[in-house]
């Protein structure tokens, strides 16, 4: 069995966990490197929350190996949890208590001692809730509650931050603000694991993406690695005054795939073919209105993998590439 390497803060191999007749995790492999932002991406029920719970040792696996900070959280749970900061999908706050009391409770459980008051004030200021600390949390807006939960998660200065759908229930503006705060926080060198089912949230935030489904990891890698492995080499979008005039491109040399649904999307063997294609169309009197080489978003990658487009001709990943085989893309 593979063991955790020196820069792996979290190392999970073949982790399984069953609840009744449901496999919450089924052979999950997950690696989180020091100082990275890892996004667990997947639909509801994919096993993201269970994975977070395994990392802190809140749940034990039925099978598999877990190492966090180099130790097994099942045996070193307390020490691991002291170094983790968690924000769950529901903010997990005590509504009858004030914001201050919620933070003070965490400060005492995490043993901050005489530093508690200073840390509470620092964390509250960091997330812009210092003026609301005396109010009962039951009266907070959803956004305020999320900020309070975030403040609570970082107050003890954890080495590993685990955010489970931190923007759940927030309006777009608040979501954006929370993601900015996470980005700023991660910019300080902290290691972050964030779960989300919103692909846009992961875009631009993730150093590493793990797409999960039915309790297992479908694919994992940096956005660039995933693009290289699972996205056709060169994709260009084209449109014209008479879009049907573009259909002739489907038979041109170097065009691997052609699809037109409103605009035309071409998969080429090389982006260098674009000028020739444009010249040819122009010479034939086709008036182009759009020519746009396209870089895939995470959403494109996600659905490419799910829909099997990653298996398109010429796009199969190398079997020995970074240890990720085509068999792992289930």
């Amino acid at each position, binding site marked *: 069995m593979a063991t955790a390497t*020196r*820069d*792996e*803060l979290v190392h999970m191999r073949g982790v399984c966990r069953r*609840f*009744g007749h449901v496999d*919450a995790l089924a052979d999950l492999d997950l690696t989180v490197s*020091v*100082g990275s932002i890892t996004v667990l991406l997947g639909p509801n029920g994919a096993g993201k929350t*269970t994975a977070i*719970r395994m990392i*802190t*040792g*809140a*749940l034990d696996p039925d099978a598999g190996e877990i190492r966090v*900070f*180099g*130790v097994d959280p099942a*045996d*070193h*749970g*307390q*020490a*691991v*949890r*002291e*170094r*983790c900061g*968690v924000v*769950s999908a*529901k*903010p*997990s*706050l*005590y*509504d*009858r*208590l004030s914001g201050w*009391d919620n933070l003070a*409770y*965490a400060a*005492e*459980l*995490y*043993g901050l001692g005489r530093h508690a008051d200073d840390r509470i004030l620092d964390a509250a200021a960091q997330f812009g809730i210092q003026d609301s600390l005396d109010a*009962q949390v039951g009266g907070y807006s959803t956004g305020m509650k999320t900020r309070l939960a975030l403040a*609570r998660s*970082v107050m003890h*200065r954890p*080495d*590993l931050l*685990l955010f489970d759908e931190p923007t759940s229930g927030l309006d777009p503006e608040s979501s954006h603000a929370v993601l900015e705060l996470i980005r700023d*926080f991660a910019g*300080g*060198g*902290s*290691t972050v694991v964030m779960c989300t089912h919103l692909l846009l949230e992961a875009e631009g935030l993730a150093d590493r993406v793990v797409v999960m489904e039915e309790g297992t990891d479908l694919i994992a890698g940096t956005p660039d690695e995933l693009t290289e492995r699972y996205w056709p080499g060169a994709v260009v979008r084209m449109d014209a005054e008479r879009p049907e005039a573009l259909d002739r491109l489907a038979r041109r040399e170097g065009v691997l795939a052609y699809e037109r649904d409103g605009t035309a999307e071409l998969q080429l063997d090389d982006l260098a073919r674009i000028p020739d294609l444009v010249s040819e169309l122009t010479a034939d009197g086709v008036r182009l209105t759009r020519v746009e080489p396209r870089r895939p978003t995470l959403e494109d990658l996600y659905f490419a993998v799910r829909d099997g487009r990653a298996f398109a001709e010429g796009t199969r990943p190398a079997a020995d590439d970074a240890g990720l085989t085509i068999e792992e893309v289930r």
Partner: protein
Amino acid sequence: MAAITASEVSATALPADSGHIDRARLWTVARTDLKQLIQAKDFWIPMLILGSIFFLFVPTVLLLAITRVGNVQVVEQLSTTLEVLPQKAQEAIQGDSDAGRAAYAMAVYLFAPVAIVVPLTISTAVGAATIVGEREKGTGEFLAHSPAAVREIYLGKLIASLVPGYLTTLLGFGVYSLVVNLIVGPDVGGWFFPTQEWWVLMFWVVPPFLALTLSLVLRLSARVKSTAAAQQASGLVTLPLIMVAYSQSTGALFGAGSASFVIGAVAWVIAIIGLSRGVRAVTRARLLGVADGI
């Protein structure tokens, strides 16, 4: 924030879980639960009313009826009833008149069960909601991810459930002592309450019964799906226990001093066994609500 470096991941040797109970954390859990109870007026106002009814209003009305209204028929009936008490208890009854003796007997012997029913009722209500409540509110997730050990959480919640009931009982006991001495005292030659048996009852017999009951209630609270279910199940489980405690507390007052100590000692042993077994019912999986059977 000082972020961890790669070399620190492997260089830092994290200690294994020791099973040691951190008292500061335990008290933090208890204090936070109690703070939430204090914020919940819808809980403590009925609790205060319950204690007032049992320790103030009912004794005041009954003892005044005996000593001041002078209803001869009632006093005679009570005097007859006193004859069924154990000889030792009859000998301990003080008072120059039938009314005084009847009031003394009522104050010292017949209200003993109140001292059991009130704390068990209140603490059961608190305890039943304590763990399932964390799960329902989603705060169980915070506790499960916190460094607090499950034993610290369990004991903290046990204390938080025990304190409201026992504190109400002690306060009620103080009020009751005042009422008894003011109303019955003049008929029996001065202030006489609490008697030795009541001291033993309050500080030796009641606490273990309370702890035993809560060990069962917390176990239920960890296992059921909702607070409503926990309240229902707790009622069923604690009712027989209340009846046992009721009879034993009465027996403790009627019997010799040694009987009270024996009853208390047996209750303590059973309570300690119940508590040590009860701690196993609280797991992080149950706090999260993902344990099998929840």
